[in-house]
């Protein structure tokens, strides 16, 4: 456990260059600077590793990098998405706090592979501690001559800057993030064109998540096959999971893909005394909830979770025990999407508020018998009809909560109060 991105977490002074280097850090970068590792070889290793984007969409990282027109003239950019904000997710924060050099090295390697000489690490505005750690790490890296122009005489150039957000969940969507980085409000761009062609400031750009970048140095150091073998087919390697909610020891765990959910639950100390599992949201608030029985049979990898009716997403496991009022939980999530919708697409702008208001009304004891069908219909009309996936993220919980816990909703509408005794 905690072998790659979180491997410094128990070390003294975990974020320092010295600690990073004692763990083999910048070995790959130095190899590149010595001309011993070609971009083609790196892409090949990443493909073998089966590393998939850790931000939620799960797009193969090597493939993404190969889309960049590396030989096209002009500036190109590498951007790290450290705008972690999916409710239930907080492992990137730990990577930034405890292992910032892995992100720096990963981004530098990406820059080298894609012939992009400038990188930005977009850190969410509230992450001040991670930001300061990253800034210290950047200073160390520059002081050690690992970044800049013509690095160690290699003709390789890479400048990296931290950028701070200011509070908008939507900026975790990669094109909204680019807009935000350009000093605009974070409204997602329609695609195509994709960022690899028209990205930051209109230049070819590749955006990856913090964990994806942080995984790269170790993969290249130990080989793609080594990484792939840690996981299961189609879900290579290890992955950080945040386990939160009704568990004894909420924490981040970097574990092999394919680990049974039940093992992960044990790692988090299991449920509190006398409680039983009700449901699990496996990949962050936007992914469908899975009822207990199904959850206990799934393993933590893309295919198994999909089979169970949800998505691995950002690896954010929200555990809900029998004290949880599912109406209240869904209302809270609906409020989140209502609050965070950027407002540009009609279905999301209007639909998130509509769903939240209906749920709020049910919570206020004003529910109507037709409300559940209405909610299901509204979420269905939002699904797939917008520029970005926020509307889908708002819709899927509504559908899955009602599907799996319909009797709780019906009870609330009928009685004006929660079915769960300890709540409401």
């Amino acid at each position: 456990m905690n072998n790659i991105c979180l491997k410094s977490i128990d070390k003294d002074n975990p974020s320092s260059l010295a600690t990073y280097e004692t763990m083999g850090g910048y070995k790959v970068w130095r190899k590149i600077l010595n001309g011993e590792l070609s971009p083609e070889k790196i892409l090949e290793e990443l493909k073998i590793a089966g590393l998939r984007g850790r931000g939620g969409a799960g797009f193969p990282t090597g493939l993404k990098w190969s889309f960049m027109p590396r030989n096209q003239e002009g500036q190109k950019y590498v951007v790290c998405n450290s705008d972690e904000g999916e409710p239930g997710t907080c492992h990137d924060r730990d990577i930034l706090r405890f292992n910032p050099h892995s992100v720096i090295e990963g981004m530098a390697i990406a820059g080298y592979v894609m012939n992009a000489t400038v990188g930005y690490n977009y850190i969410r505005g509230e992450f001040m501690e991670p930001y300061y750690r990253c800034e210290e790490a950047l200073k160390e890296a520059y002081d050690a001559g690992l970044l800049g122009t013509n690095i160690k005489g290699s003709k390789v150039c890479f400048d990296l800057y931290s950028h701070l957000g200011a509070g908008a969940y939507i900026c975790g969507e990669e094109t909204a993030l680019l807009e935000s980085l350009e000093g605009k409000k974070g409204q997602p761009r329609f695609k195509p064109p994709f960022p690899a062609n028209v990205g930051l400031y209109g230049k070819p750009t590749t955006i990856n998540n913090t964990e994806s970048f942080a995984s790269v140095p170790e993969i290249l150091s130990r080989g793609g096959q080594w990484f792939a073998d840690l996981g299961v087919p189609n879900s290579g390697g290890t992955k950080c999971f945040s386990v939160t909610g009704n568990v004894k020891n909420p924490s981040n765990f970097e574990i092999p893909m394919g680990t049974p959910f039940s093992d992960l639950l044990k790692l988090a100390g299991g449920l509190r005394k006398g409680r039983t599992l009700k449901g699990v949201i496996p990949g962050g608030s936007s992914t469908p909830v899975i009822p207990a029985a199904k959850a206990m049979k799934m393993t933590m990898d893309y295919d198994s979770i999909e089979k169970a009716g949800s998505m691995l997403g950002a690896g954010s496991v929200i555990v809900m025990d029998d004290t949880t009022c599912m109406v209240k939980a869904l209302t809270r999530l609906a409020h989140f999407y209502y609050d965070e919708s950027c407002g540009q697409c009609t279905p999301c702008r209007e639909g998130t508020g509509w769903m939240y208001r209906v749920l709020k009304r049910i919570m206020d004891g004003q529910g109507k018998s037709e409300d559940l069908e209405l909610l299901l219909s509204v979420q269905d009309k939002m699904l797939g009809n917008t520029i970005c996936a926020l509307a889908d993220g708002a819709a899927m919980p509504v559908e899955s909560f009602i599907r799996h816990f319909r009797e709780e909703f019906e009870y609330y509408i009928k009685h004006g109060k929660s079915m769960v005794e300890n709540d409401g």
Partner: protein
Amino acid sequence: MISDQAKKEIDIWVAKYPEGRQSSAVMQALTIVQKENGGSLTNELKQAVADYLEMPTISVEEVATFYENYNHKPVGKHVIRFCHNISCMLNGSDELISYLEEKLDVKTGEISKDRLVSVKRVECLGACVGAPMCQIGDQYYENLTKKRIDEILDGLK
């Protein structure tokens, strides 16, 4: 309108972006002037930032009203931003927010009578393993309990 010190800080950010792309620094510029102004923005400040970064004022206004971290009305010296999203809710954030409101005699969104503190309910701050949690200034406070809240409040001056 913008102090020399603030301009210096803004310039550090401007230097990170390509020439002519100084508007990339607008979010930080707003953060900096907001901090200097005691935690909130005014039309004059937004205008000043627009002028300084050579942006249309309405574009600055769009940014200032889009992102959560800007305040458009005066706030307390300390803003307690309390997460109420799912992981925190599952760990009792609602109860703690009520406790906080009662103790400070202030509703969320309002400023305490001594203007020292205001409380804001916010969405996920990305520290869910430490739920329930809140943010005050740059600092995160995790695994909160009533006792811990008492201690934190006692430390606010």
